[in-house]
């Protein structure tokens, strides 16, 4: 493998052709986390949900929190990548693939949380046999499966030319790539169809993605429970999902860049742009949170206030204030100035946002249930090793899938990078010229280096 295509993007082929000690070590550690989760689930299956920390009245806990959290993270990929593609942001090229992979992997894990949460997983099929469409859970099932299907296609389509490159140039796993490349030859007709299909999918996934987290929020807001029954929940959840999603992409980018030495592809500028996007989402998140809590506080409805104070000063204060610090204070401090150390700052801020958004989901699910309207004795929910195991295994499965994907497919789209060099540069210049008033075009010609997009 020493032809021009490989030479030019040698770093992108690295993870595919060589496997180091680190890989096996990672897989081993992840395997342990997954084993923990598997044992925990086996115990839960045979004993019942009683092995968790759930009780009356906190009948939803970690699993539902994780469900909302992971489905939220899934908004990273497909949605962001679609928006960047449609807005013709040239800097998207090294990012879209790794973002889309997050979506597909994490959707499986998010949907899996609901199955883990069921008291009777053996009766799962009842949802199909006796499904009742008035229940928000069915809306979730529909929306999530649509999103999963669309995202998988959206990941796969731009992967086809890359798989063909691997088939022709890598010299490993030829049969696998030959099958998956679907006979891609790169003819003009094929390109036309592919670009068309990608464009259609990009438009299609956006409304589906928005619907997903909207209906996830409906699980809560359709009830009449204090601090759940809120009209803002749809947009609040979607914004939170995109927020945590961008953070997840940045963390993934930071790690991949380090491990696979892709510094020349994932440059500080990429982190800076995404960091700015994250900053915008931080502000949006804060705005929505503020609106949500102020309305509750001002209305001063006793049932709402019980939940409100349990978050602000009551038993949940550490979680609530940690969330505020992780989701707002730290990102604000780190992201306002990204001229220097953009990579480090955005990655650290993003890591905090991921944790903060998990706390946000927890702080939405549990305090409402902990504060019943009637004077019941209050119970404190605390997860057992079973729930921690499922959490560890969820992350384990996610990272393992991701690592395996990186082993088998290029995590940065090879052809899109090449297209950026060969076609993108010129296209951007032409596009810029069309933005300018007539006559400016000729004058601007020499300023070639200034092309930024």
């Amino acid at each position, binding site marked *: 493998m020493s032809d021009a295509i490989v030479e030019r993007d040698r770093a992108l082929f690295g993870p595919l052709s060589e496997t180091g000690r680190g890989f096996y070590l990672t897989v081993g550690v992840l395997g342990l986390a997954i084993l923990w989760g598997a044992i925990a689930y086996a115990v839960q299956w045979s*004993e*019942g*949900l*009683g*092995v968790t920390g*759930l*009780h*009356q*009245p*906190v*009948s*939803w806990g970690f699993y539902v929190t994780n469900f909302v959290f992971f489905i939220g993270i899934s908004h990273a990929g497909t949605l962001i990548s679609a928006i960047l593609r449609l807005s013709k942001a040239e800097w998207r090229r090294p990012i879209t693939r790794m973002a889309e992979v997050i979506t597909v992997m994490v959707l499986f894990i998010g949907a899996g949380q*609901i199955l883990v*949460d*069921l*008291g*009777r*997983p053996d*009766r*799962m099929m*009842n*949802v199909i046999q*006796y*499904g*009742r469409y*008035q*229940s*928000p*859970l*069915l809306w979730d099932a529909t929306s999530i499966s649509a999103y999963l299907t669309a995202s998988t296609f959206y990941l796969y389509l731009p992967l086809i030319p890359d798989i063909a490159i691997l088939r022709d140039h890598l010299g490993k796993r030829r049969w696998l790539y030959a099958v998956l490349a679907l006979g891609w030859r790169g003819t003009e007709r094929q390109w036309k169809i592919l670009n068309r299909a990608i464009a259609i999918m990009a438009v299609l996934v956006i409304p589906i993605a928005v619907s997903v987290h909207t209906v996830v929020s409906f*699980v809560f807001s*359709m*009830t*009449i*429970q204090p601090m759940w029954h809120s009209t803002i929940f749809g947009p609040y959840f979607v914004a939170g999902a995109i927020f945590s999603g961008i953070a997840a992409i940045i963390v993934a980018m930071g790690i991949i860049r380090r491990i696979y030495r892709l510094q020349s592809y994932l440059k500080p500028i990429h982190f800076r742009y995404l960091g700015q996007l994250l900053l915008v989402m931080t502000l949006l998140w804060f705005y929505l949170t503020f609106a949500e809590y102020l309305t509750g506080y001002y209305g001063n409805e006793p049932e709402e206030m019980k939940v409100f104070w349990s978050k602000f000063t009551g038993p949940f204060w550490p979680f609530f204030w940690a969330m505020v610090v992780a989701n707002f204070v730290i990102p604000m401090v780190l992201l306002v100035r990204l001229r220097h150390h953009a990579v480090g700052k955005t990655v650290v801020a993003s890591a905090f946002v991921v944790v903060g958004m998990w706390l946000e989901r927890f702080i939405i699910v549990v305090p409402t*249930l902990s504060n*019943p*309207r*009637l*004077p*019941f*004795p209050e*119970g404190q929910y605390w997860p057992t090793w079973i729930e921690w195991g499922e959490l560890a295994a969820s992350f384990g499965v996610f990272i393992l899938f991701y690592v395996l994907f990186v082993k088998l497919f290029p995590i940065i789209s090879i052809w899109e990078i090449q297209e950026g060099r060969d076609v993108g540069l010129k296209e951007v210049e032409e596009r810029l010229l069309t933005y300018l008033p007539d006559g400016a075009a000729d004058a601007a010609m020499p300023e070639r280096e200034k092309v930024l997009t």
Partner: protein
Amino acid sequence: MALWGMVIDLDRCTGCQACVMACKAENNVPAVGPKEAARGRIISWMHVLREESEERTRFLPRPCLQCDDPPCTKVCPVYATYRNPEGIVAQIHARCIGCRFCMAACPYNAKYFNWLRYQKEGPGQNPDVSVRPKGVVEKCTFCHHRLQKARERARAEGRDLVAGDYVTACAEACPTRAITFGDLLDEGSEVARLARSPRAFRLGEELGTRPKVFYLAEMEGHRRV
């Protein structure tokens, strides 16, 4: 068609828990044991809430309020809980997938979950009520099996169901006769008369759930629960 309902007179209730015990025996409600109880897993279809203040302790027995517009049935993904034509909110234990959505949606915490397998079928149980497996939700059904039995008996005797044929176990057991049960649509019935009393109120009236369990407020001018 009847609309079954209940009136609980808070002036009469002494908090003796006879209704709770009668309900447990009647409906095979499992005793979960001290360890599970300490973890907050007690199952008590009829639950007597206490509110202690300096002058006195007040009680409020709370069965499932059999909401006429129940928020719990709306959210069930599999029709495992539904309002039947006579207004009783039923549970189908054999179908429930244990998602606990209905528990999260009930504003009165009237639903209970079988976190573990709490009991097997055995002697001393009421044969008319099925024993619940692990992983499903259960709650007060207004002793629905008693209605079925009463109806069969009436049919066998060739007559219509009359007031008093069907009462719940809690109403029967209450030593102070604080609980009155019957058909709310039967104008002449005791329960319909009491439900119209100026003392009558319902829990969480503002939620629009329209419970069919009414309470008669205490008369000493205390704040309602």
